[in-house]
Structures are given as C-alpha cells and as structure tokens.
C-alpha cells in the first residue's frame, strides 16, 4: 500500500502507423485539445509499418500546443545515447519544454540485430542503458557549477565510448528520464538513476496488485543510492474499453474506470495513467470523464484541496 504523492497525469499511447501517415498526428491533436497531459508513441525502429518515432514526435510537437510528448519507450540499442541526448534537447527547445524521455533497454534482439544493432544479454542491456542515461545527462549538462562552460564528454564504458563529444544543447526544462522495466535488476537501476518508471499493466503479473512487488525493487534501488523513492514517478500504460456493463478491470463505464484508477493511484503508487487508444471518442471520454474524477477522488483521499480541472 503505497502512494508516492505525485500529482496525477493522464496520457495516451497512440499507434504510430504510417498508413494513413497522419493517423497518429490527428489523434495527438485530439489528446492535446482534450486537455490530456501526455501523448506517447511506441518506438520499434525495425517495424516498417510504423512511422519513425523521433520524426513523429518532432512533427507532433509543431502541431500541438500544450501536451507533453514522449516515446513509449525509446529503443536505446538502435539510437545512440549521445545522438538521442542532442535530439531530445533540441526537441525540448523547439517545443517549449514539452518533451520527456522514456527509454527501453531493448527486447526484440533478432530484429535489433537485423538492423545492424548489437545483440546483448538482458543483463548487458541494463548495463548499457545505465551507461546511456549517464551519457545523456552529461550531454545535457553544459555548465559547471561555477558557471563555466564544461568541456567535452568523455566516457569509457563497457558498451559506449564517447571521446570528447561536444555538450549541449541544454534542454528547455529538466527532461524526465523514465525507464520501461519489469525485472528486478532493471527496476533497481531505475530506482538508482531514473526519474520515472513506465511499465505496461498488461505485462505486470497479478495485475495492479503486482505493482507493489515491482515498486519495492525500485524503492530498494533508490534507497541504496541514497535517493528518496519519491524521486521516481510511477507511470503505467493501461488498456481499457468503455462499455455499459462491468466486464472486468477498465472494461465498463467511465465511473468504474475512475474508481479503479483511483484505487491503483492510492494503493499502488501510480501517478501517470497512459491509455492505449487509437479512437478519438475514447481519448476524449478518458480526458473528460475519467481524468477529472480520478484527480478529485485522489485529492480527497489525500486530504488535499480538490484540484482545478485543467482546461
């Protein structure tokens, strides 16, 4: 039973199909107008039916005004961290500080290898991700504490070698680095170095209750690194369907969804709910009927003043 006390965020997970090419763009605009907090897209660079996620994020940034954007999650094995850092900072500057960076260690190794990426064991991929996060943070870190311009980035890691790469640009805001993770080792790493955690509920054994054991690994990783477990935001990809009758978790009317998400937020620590949907009506309903109700119920339970619904 945990509540890390973060403000609540609601987002969407939109399929980046390239046929029709504007599908994901149009739905991101719907989510933006509906007042959702996040529009996210999966990143599978080996999948020719999808748009390139980085290209899509950049394009969507110019078509939206308020919503924050993220890959869900970005495939690190096929995107070099130094390059990713510069791209992320650039897009954060262009979008007025609306980019977040959710990263994955990679999973489909046959496909990654087919694209010319290196095959790693699960353990190696976690190690590579941790190195990568370090490189990304260094590229972003342009000023020394004294205010002087820092020198080039030098990293001699097991997986990445960076020899004096130029720093910068510095992003417009403190970009959150979130990690898609399910196994103990990567969860501990998330607690050690990341700003957020982004798993998919469908892969969590035992459903929402199963989050507790996973959160405990993150908390342990944070403790060991001398960080507060509250430093790591807990997000969650969810799937659901609006229907008149209760047909199970997130299969029912909006009020049922709101009760269920409130329970997950208060008891299992989740503060970001990202709904997988490619349907404009569902996205709007989620924004207008579910998100405000969960915000209100959670604020009430936490003893906070009722939040003002974002317009």
């Amino acid at each position, binding site marked *: 039973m945990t509540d890390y006390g973060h403000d609540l965020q609601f987002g969407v997970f939109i399929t980046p199909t390239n*046929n*029709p090419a504007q599908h994901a*763009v149009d739905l991101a605009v719907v989510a933006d107008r509906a007042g959702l907090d996040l529009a996210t897209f999966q990143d599978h660079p080996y999948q*020719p039916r999808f748009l390139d996620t980085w290209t*899509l994020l*950049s394009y969507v940034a110019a078509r939206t005004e308020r919503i924050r954007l993220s890959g869900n999650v970005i495939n690190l094995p096929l*995107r070099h961290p130094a390059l990713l850092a510069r791209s992320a900072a650039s*897009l954060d500057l262009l979008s007025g500080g609306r980019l977040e960076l959710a990263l994955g260690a990679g999973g489909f190794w046959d496909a990654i290898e087919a*694209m*010319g990426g290196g095959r790693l064991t699960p353990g190696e991929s976690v190690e590579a991700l941790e190195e990568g996060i370090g490189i990304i943070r260094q590229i972003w870190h342009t000023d020394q504490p004294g205010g002087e311009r820092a020198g080039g980035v030098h990293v001699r890691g097991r997986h990445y070698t960076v020899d004096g790469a130029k720093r910068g640009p510095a992003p417009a805001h403190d970009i959150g680095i979130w990690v898609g993770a399910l196994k103990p080792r990567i969860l501990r790493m998330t607690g050690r170095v990341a700003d957020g955690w982004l798993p998919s509920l469908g892969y969590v054994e035992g459903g929402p209750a199963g989050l507790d054991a996973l959160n405990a690994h993150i908390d342990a990783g944070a403790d060991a690194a001398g960080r507060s477990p509250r430093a790591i935001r807990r997000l969650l990809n969810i799937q659901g369907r609006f229907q008149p009758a209760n047909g199970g978790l997130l299969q029912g009317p909006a009020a049922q969804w709101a009760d269920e998400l409130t329970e997950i937020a208060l008891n299992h620590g989740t503060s970001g709910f990202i709904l997988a949907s490619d349907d404009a009506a569902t996205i709007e309903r989620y924004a207008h009927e579910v998100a405000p109700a969960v915000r209100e119920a959670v604020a009430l339970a936490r003893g906070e003043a009722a939040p003002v619904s974002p317009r």
Partner: protein
Amino acid sequence: MDNNYGHPLRFGLSLRSSAPAGMAERVALAEDLGYDLVSVPDAGELDAWSVASWLAAGTGRIILSPLVSLGEHNPAVLGRAAASLDLLSGGRLELGLTLDSDSDSDAAALGEAIDVIRGIWEGEARAALRYDGEHYQLHGAAGGPRPAHRVPIVVQGADASMMHLTGQRADGWLGAEPDGNAIVDAAARAAGRDPREIRRVLEIEQSDVPSTAWAAQLLPLVIGKGVGDILLRSADPAVIRRFITEVVPALRQAADLALPGLSTAAPVRPAAALARRVAGIDYDSIPLTLAAIEPGDHDYATVHSTYMRGGSPGLVLRPHTAEQVTDAVAFARRHHEVPLGIRSGGHGISGRSTNRDGIVIDVSALDEIEVLDTERRLVRIGPGARWGEVAAALEPYDWAISSGDYGGVGVGGLATAGGIGFLGRAHGLTIDHLRAVELVLADGSRVRASASENPDLFWAVRGAGPSFGIATAFEFEAAAVPGVGWAELVFDASDTAGFLEKWGATLEATPRDTTSFITLGGARPGEPLLARFSAMVDSDDPETIISRLQPFADIAPMYQQSVQVLSYARALMPAQGEANGGSGEPHSRSGLLEHVTPEFARAAAGLLGSGASYFFQIRSTGGAASDIDPDATAYAHRSAQFSVAAMGASAERLDRGWAALEPAFAGLYLSFDTATGPDRVAAAFPPRTLERLRALKAQYDPTTLFRDNFAIRPATAPATASGSTETRAAR
C-alpha cells in the same frame, strides 16, 4: 551550355547556425515568398532531423532538406526516419548527408549508409534485407516504408573521396570546390551515370551589395559551374525578402538569356532508370499529357502487381480523362505486338491487368461518383472507383448497387463481367443495374451504349466487356436499400458433403431477399474443416432477418455467430487502402451450378479433403438474376443458382480435383477462372451468345487489341491494323 547540367534554378534558405528563436517564422516567410527549399544543417546547436520534422508540420509547400551528419546514426533507422518524414510531409524531403568534421568515419562509410538507406526505401516489408559492408550490416531487416516520392540524396563534402562518392551514388552535391565538378562528373561517367543526374548545390553568405550586382556575381556560378540550387544563409528577414524578390528574378532573367530553355528543362532520366526500359515500347512517343509509370520510376513499385498476381509491365499508363484513354489506346494500337492489360481496381482473376514487358492502361484515376437523378436513383460512376467508395457514396441516400463481396474491387472489372454479390438474389447482378456505358473502342472512337444507343455493344459489354473496349463511365440505377441484415457464422464442416448439401437446399428454400456465400478450405492438420458463412438479408427488420437465418442455424454445429443490422456500405468489407502487392500466379477455377446435388457435394468434399484447394467458395445467385432473359446480356447463364470457385497452390492438382466437379456445371463465370483457351471461352458463353459476340468482335475490334480477359476471336478474318501515326515530342 558548357558545364551546365540542365536543372532549372531553385532557391533555398539555409538555417546554418540559425538560433531556434524565430526560426519557424523565418521559414514560413521563406515559404510565403516563394523559396523552393529550406536546408537544415546539423552544424548548429540543434539536431537537424528534429528541426526538419518540426518545420514539416508548420509548412505546406517548401522542400525540407535536413543535412545530417552521419556520426552515430544507424543508417537503417535513418532510412525509415527519412521515409517517415517524406510520408508526413507529403513528399517534400530531400535528404542531405555529410560527415562530422571531427569523426573518423569516411566517405566509404557514407557510401555504405546510402546503400542501406536506399535498400530500406526500396525493400518490401516481407523482405529480409542483407548488407555486408565494412561499416554497416543488415541481417534480414524488413524493408520499408516506401517514401511518398523518390527522395533525392544530396551529399555535402569538398574532398576528393566525397566528390567520388557523389558521382557514383548521389543525386546532388553540396560543395564549394571550384574544380569539383570535373571529379564528380568523371566519377559519374565511370559509374555509368549521366553527370546531369547530379544537381549542383551551393550555399552562399548574405551580401550587402545591391541586388543587380549580387545577381551578376551569382550568374557565373550558374552558367560556368552549373549550380542549380542556391542556398542563402541568412537569419535577417529583410535580406531573405530582398534576395528572393530582387536578386532571384534578375538572376533568373540573366540565366535564361545565357541558357535558353533552362527554366523549363525537365530533369534527365537517370541512366539506371533508362536501363530498365523494355525493348519494343517506344517510350519517346508517349503523349506528354498522359501520366506514365515505367520500371525505373518511384511509383512503379505500387503498380506493377495486382491484388493476386505479380507482374513486370514495361509501362503503366494512367489516363485521367476519357480523352486521355483515347490517347492511351492509340499508343497501345501502335504496340499491338506487346501484351496489353486493362486495369481498374486490379482485383481481376481472369483479367490479368498486369503482364511481363507489356503495357497496362490503368483507369484508377477515373474514379468520380456522381448522383445524376435522385428520382430514378441514377448514378454515374467512373471505372476506377472502388465498390467500397460507391457504397459509401450511396449510403446517405439509402441506396446500394449489388457489387461482389469486397470494397477494394474496382468498378470497371465487375461492371463489365457480371458481378455476383451479396444483394444478387434480391437485386440481380451488377450488370443488371447498368443503364448506359461510355467506352473507348479499339479504333479510339468514343461511344455511348445503352438500350437505345448502340444496343449491340450494350449487350456485349454486360458480360464480355473486356473484349470490346475500355469503359470510361457507367450509369447505374441503384436500388433502395435502407439497411441490411448481415450475418457471419462459422460452422463445423467436418461432414463436408452433408454441410454443402444442406446449405444449398436451405438456401434454395429461403426467399430471394437473402443471399449467402460460404467459404471453406485451408484446414490445419488435426483441426476440423470450418465453413465461413456470410449472408445478407435485404431488410432492416430484425424479425425478418432472424426468420431468414434461423433455418441455417441447424445445418451443422456452429462455432461463432454475429448478426447485425447495418448499412450496405458497412457490411461490404471496406478496402484496406494499400497498394496491390500480389506475387506469383493464382490458379482458380469457376463453375456455375443449378443445385447442390449429393453428387456435387461429395465431389466437392473430395476436392477439399485432398488439400488441392485452400480456398473454396460457393456464392448463391439466381433470384432476381434469373428473372433476366438469357439473351438480354452477354452473361447468359441466368438459370444458375450457385457460382463455385476454387483456388489452389498447384494448377495441376487443382485441375485434377476439379475434374470430378465438372459434370455438375453448366458454364462458368469468367471472373473467377484463370484458365485460358477456346474451351474456357466456350464454357463462359453458350454457343448462341458466343456467335453473336464473335460477330460483334469482328465489327468493333477486328485486330483483337483487347485480349487480356477471355479473348473472343472475331468472326471474320482480321483486317490490317491501321495504327495512328501521330507522335509527340520526346519526353
């Protein structure tokens, strides 16, 4: 003309070292002022790719040219990213590639990256791409997506190795070396390319000199160095404006004086594309107004195959008007010896509509749907429209035209052969709703045929249309169909013969408002054979619908059922919107049946049991289709109650299994049969019908120009072809 490469001048804005603040506004200004492109180098603070993608969303016309430093990019990922940006921007990408000044990668790495990027663009999704370079490898990557247009690759680099690479592989060169052209040109020639394939790009600093003087400074670069693109590096809106409104017009005028025709020159066709042309097709005589796609063109990948069939035509002509269909037919007449396919939606089984080294006339652009008369429900439809589009267009009127079982099928093919669809028993064949047709005949004349105009031709088109001309418009009388009952059931067909017989008997006992299709085949070893049952009831009354379907529920154990009340448009499976990607050659047989007799059912069960057919379908027909006099249309098998089709992986095995079914058939439906030859034509048309068709063929197409789909032999000896002699300027 010395040292000019024949590219009309283009002008761009370079964002090199441009700060993010005001960038979008400057690019919008450039687009408004008429700049052709915006160049986004990686050299600044910001990542060029993110900037270019972001700018794409805020612009509508200007070409985007990110100049990417290869660095740590994975070229396969970059290839997909480039295709994505081209798709998102509606075909506005030109990809610039260069090397980091401080990186240790070299021109060889960039050359490999270009190979990988182009491999991704050209590869099929199902392909397993392999590339074994020194710097980059692919181990079975999927190909695609295909960009929206042929994306040019521009290389920036001033050392000899980069110039060599440009000459060998690039479409453009951004360099500053005075003698670079000689190296680039030599490398191009050595690689078998025409140096004119490579556009020369120059980036210039802004200048304070007066506009005419500035234009005079630039002129020698155009006429002496062959520069085609000039990129202005400036962040000052006043300079951006002055350059395009004052300097550019002066420069264009001077360049046109020095190099007459430069501003209207067409880009040279690459040597690699010319090499893919087919002998026997006179490409230079294609009328300039006629859209043409040949094997070296970007769009060829989307047109060479049909839905079910692979092909490699030498030329696909895409007329946009009936007039242009006449031009296309004239071109085909001058090439009587090469195969000719006529394509609407490309779903034909008997009509090939693709070929090897021949010509295809693709009428998909003639796709207008127009309601002519709401009282009479009269609708004019182009042959290139798809039936799903027709159904959607008629939905607001509560009308429908019976049209097969899939929304992706083109109007032209179905409306000239028959059209056995889900409203068939209720409303007849598709051709039974045809009231008039406009055609281009083999001699190029344009005629209208109806009950009162050219009635012989109107008779022939309704069943044997592909042999008589290319339809350019149809006029149909739609039926009032406010809603339909739509059922999809899955039955256990382990007792295959019993199931078929019961289904056939039940169907014949069901009122004609109900039409059902069943599809069997492809059972996995150890699993029961399933029958997919579809039925449409021409009624939106749930009680009527249920009463029609109830008798079918008992014919065999049922696994799944779905019954809905829908519009016809929603029931007809919509098209997927993808280009046809067939490969190989389908093998399909067709037969028309009066009743599903026990003998037939046993023979069909034998065919399915043998595994020779992976797709076996029986469609009910009859009803309203049987009300028509057999002599009223060239489709004459009016007494048939069922149309049977089977597809198999092996033609030989399929034919062997099919032979046992043959005795039951009375004729065939030509649209579902891939076999060719006089006996097939004789099975498609009864003797009296065929005799009349042959007489008309002698009248309308004596040289047999149209022979792609159940070719009918003219009754008299063919006259000599009198091909038109007009030619047009070379393309």
